[in-house]
């Protein structure tokens, strides 16, 4: 990869290639076993929320794809009870927020949504999938504290995100999550890529 990257950089297409590289949604299924470990070994249980973050494109084709995702998720709501909500945050990024009692339904819905966007050939717009967990008494942290596993579509890797009030990160918790889940999930080993996804108000989810 090193030489290939160097050639891309020499030709000035590195940025272009990275921005248009397609995403692989199959990695998302890693989460459907990881959540068991999260609860059993760490004491963090899923809150029942997950979200998909992507940047919008101002084109009719893109809007068609988003409508298609909406239709699929609406049909899914009748089958599984997974509720989907479409939002835009203050940075102009779109979120599909999903809520389900069964964690595997969440993973399936996130996969469905991202797969539809990729099929519509807008996979390069997918930024992240976020799965929310909260601390139980067993976690050794303040009960109810939220932590997240973020899947980066660009990198094809996961990283933990444990926000604290005032836009600080709980690195101790993130370290613990990384150590225990590494292997089960492909954890991003370069911390420079552990981008935070701060919520608009502290204490709420990144998509709020």
């Amino acid at each position, binding site marked *: 990869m090193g030489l290939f990257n160097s050639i891309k*950089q*020499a*030709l*000035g*297409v*590195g*940025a*272009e290639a*990275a*921005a*248009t*590289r397609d995403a692989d949604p199959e990695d998302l299924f890693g989460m459907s076993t990881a959540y068991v470990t999260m609860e059993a070994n760490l004491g963090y249980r899923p809150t029942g929320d997950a979200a998909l973050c992507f*940047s*919008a*494109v*101002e*084109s*009719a*084709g*893109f809007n*068609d794809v988003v409508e298609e995702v909406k239709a699929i998720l609406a049909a899914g709501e009748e089958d599984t009870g997974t509720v989907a909500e479409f939002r835009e945050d203050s*940075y*102009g*990024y779109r979120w599909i927020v999903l809520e389900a009692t069964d964690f595997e339904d969440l993973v399936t819905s996130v996969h469905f949504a991202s797969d539809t966007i990729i099929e*519509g*050939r*807008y*996979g*390069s*717009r997918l*930024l*992240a999938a976020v799965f929310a967990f909260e601390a139980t008494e067993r976690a050794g942290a303040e009960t109810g504290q939220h932590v997240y596993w973020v899947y*980066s579509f*660009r*990198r094809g890797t996961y990283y933990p995100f444990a926000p604290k009030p005032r*836009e600080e990160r709980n690195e101790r918790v993130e370290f613990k999550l990384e150590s225990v889940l590494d292997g089960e999930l492909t954890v991003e080993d*370069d911390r*420079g*890529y552990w*981008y*935070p996804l*701060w919520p608009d108000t502290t204490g709420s989810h990144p998509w709020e």
Partner: protein
Amino acid sequence: MASMEWQADWGLRGRMLVTMVLLGVLYVVAIAVLWELFTSVLIIVVFFGIFTFAQVFYSDKLALKSMGAREVDASEYPQLHRMTERLCQQADLPKPKIAVADSNVPNAFATGHSKDSSAVCVTTGLMNTLNDEELEGVIAHELAHIKNRDVMVMTIASFLSTIAFLMVRYGMFFGGRGRGGRGGAGILVAVLVSLVIWVISFILIRALSRYREFAADRGGALITGNPAALASALRSIDDTMERTPETDMREQAEMNAFFIIPIKKGFIGKIARTHPQTEKRIEKLQELERELHT
């Protein structure tokens, strides 16, 4: 069906490759000729070489300093930081340092020789002039420069050119203490050869610099998925630039090569431009925008 699959710009890649090959050939020939003339020149080349590279590795901070820019953290410019983070995520880059320069001239530049040492600097004027979408476009353009490692590419490309320039300027000085029999006359030839190398490489490097700008525009537009916003940002930067008082421009003239749009300082001539004309860049972005809708 409309989609995000973009046509590769093979023309641009080709021109870039040809320019780089020509530079490479020029440098190899130059070294061979100088070697043929005498070995003492090589000592000077090595001397200047070490000097140039040392300078290069200090220049990261120098660029920020000479602009009066200072690094800012997320508490001071939360919006700028978050915007950059999202774009980095899209561009698959670790987050660079973010600096702000207090200046009414709307501009931005990226520095750094590696992904880890890189910084993006914007002026307060840029943030005042552009809306969020346009600012995003400009930052994405700078991130594309970082991703394409343009500072490093241009440093390597200009390396021998810089030495040739130094030879022309200071070669005579070394001539006074010519080594052995070949002495002064030999140095004179070396200076002449250097002059030729410098002139040719100057033209090639400027061409390469313009191609890198086009590539960064492309990269930036594909990162945001919004070529129109970058185009309108370029347009308003260009317009503001023409209205800005002359004093500001002179202050920043030497930083031109790093800017998103260089300040116009009289007629430099087409081949001496580091940046393509804004009109041409906007045209290219319009092509991308069209691709988006077809």
